[in-house]
């Protein structure tokens, strides 16, 4: 099984090839350069693995939340590749990828993963350490003010993601049990690919046209009439 994974939801840009237990990854932090970098990075991981494009079984991508433009680059690339190769797509949550990475790197049963969403908000979700360190989502992923974050009855010992950089104080106040924060982590293709591989094995695939971002923030424009009243 060969899963190609791509992740461009944040300042980081990465591509990975996951083959059974083996992961080959390229990862760089390069804001606004994803469009230039992502396809050559895909070629590099394939070359290093000695795999040709037609051998790819499925494409996993970071479906969000994250930067809108970044998510569409990932979705567009995924649509093009999956349609061109006639293979299925595995949409993977960027927050789950962050949680997965944190469970590998630190101890603890619960993690709050969040990304800075600007405008005083974060994209966040709570995860419990599941089987083999795979994160299980508790509740929903949401866009919310950090002041509204709640522990939802589980022991959250870990924090991960850029939301913790901007809102460390408030989040620590809301989640008092957190003892370790991995704040310089961005979602990475290696974890997107490994989570995608599990979905693939479980038959949770979609078609190329269903490679659509999950933005969480859907209020992106106001109609003129509403504006006039303010």
């Amino acid at each position, binding site marked *: 099984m060969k899963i190609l994974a791509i992740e461009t939801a944040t300042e980081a840009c990465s591509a990975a090839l996951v083959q059974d237990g083996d992961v080959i990854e390229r990862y760089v932090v390069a804001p606004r350069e994803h*469009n230039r970098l992502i*396809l050559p990075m895909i070629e590099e991981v394939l070359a290093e693995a000695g795999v040709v494009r037609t051998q790819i079984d499925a494409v996993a991508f970071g479906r969000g939340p994250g930067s809108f433009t970044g998510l*569409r680059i990932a*979705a567009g690339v995924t649509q093009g590749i999956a349609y061109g190769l006639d293979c299925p797509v595995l949409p993977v949550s960027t927050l789950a990828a962050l949680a997965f990475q944190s469970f590998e790197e630190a101890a603890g049963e619960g993690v709050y993963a969040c990304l800075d969403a600007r405008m005083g908000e974060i994209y966040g979700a709570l995860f419990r350490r599941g089987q083999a360190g795979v994160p299980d989502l508790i509740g929903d992923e949401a866009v919310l003010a950090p002041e509204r974050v709640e522990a939802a009855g589980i022991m959250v010992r870990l924090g991960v993601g850029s939301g913790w950089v901007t809102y460390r104080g408030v989040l620590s106040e809301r989640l008092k049990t957190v003892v370790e924060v991995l704040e310089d982590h961005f979602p990475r293709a290696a974890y997107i690919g490994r989570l995608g591989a599990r979905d693939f094995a479980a038959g949770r695939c979609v078609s190329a046209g269903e490679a*659509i971002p999950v933005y969480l923030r859907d209020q992106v*424009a106001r109609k003129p009439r509403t504006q006039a009243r303010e």
Partner: protein
Amino acid sequence: MQSNTSFRVLGIETSCDETGLAVFDSRYGLLAHALHSQVQLHADYGGVVPELASRDHIRKLLPLLREVLSAAGLGRSDLDGVAYTAGPGLVGALLAGAAAGRALAWALDVPALAVHHMEGHLLAPLLEADRPEFPFLCLLVSGGHTQLIDVAGIGRYGILGESLDDAAGEAFDKVAKMLGLGYPGGPAVAALAERGMPGRFRFPRPMTDRPGLDFSFSGLKTHVLQVLAAHPDNADVRADVAAEFQAAVVETLLVKCRRALRETGLQRLVVSGGVSANRAMRSALRVLSEEEGVRVYFPRLEFCTDNGAMIAYAGCQRLLAGQAEPLRIAAYPRWPLDTLAPL
């Protein structure tokens, strides 16, 4: 350019508020095209909302791709190249089509080409059976551009004149708002103008009284506002304002076209871009072409505004000539037409 073997190019257009896909075959011409317009989506906002446009493109690309391939009777492996609009346009919208198009070309292991949207418009009349040969004078009149171009061949563009402020289509859209018509306003103003009387109000023909081939349409808005403020708001006034506004734009374009034809000695006039759908302008330019003894060419109506067919056509010509893009998703929101590589 026609060839004996088929070279089939997929064209993808997502620079603004239309998702357009098409397949052009170098031997058999246009095989299929499909378009999704976002007019309804943006109507309530009074103009294009870039983020909503981008979100819609990424949803519509694949369904339209399947549609054109099945209409053309082709499978994905029958494509020999992929052309996508790389600019100018809204960066987020451009990136959606560019990412999908460039990645598709990579997956199919065929060359890709980043097409200039205005070159697409400019070459759109070449999709017709009766098509102009080079060289020709092109009047490009769209939502974002008003240019007179000396076209010696593909990629050989000399800009003779252009709008110093609003584009002609933009002026139509803004006047439409003043008249309480929806977005996009061009067709609505044109329809209203049919019922009005030009000349009851008198608007200037900007910059026609001095030499040169540049345009300026922003001043017309002020005249429209003044007349509307000075008269009771009723259907006759609105129709007469629309008629005089349209007459002023058309006559201005006409004067400059005549001047450009005489200065360059070119024998063919090509008119393209969204405003070239305007009926009053088409008939005025037909009269002009007879008076000047030149031939005039327009795209078919559906290819005046944004579409995938013109992108597939432009991309096909360049790919056939051996041009191709490196492995990069190209998006250039601002991209001057006269910097393109000649064929």
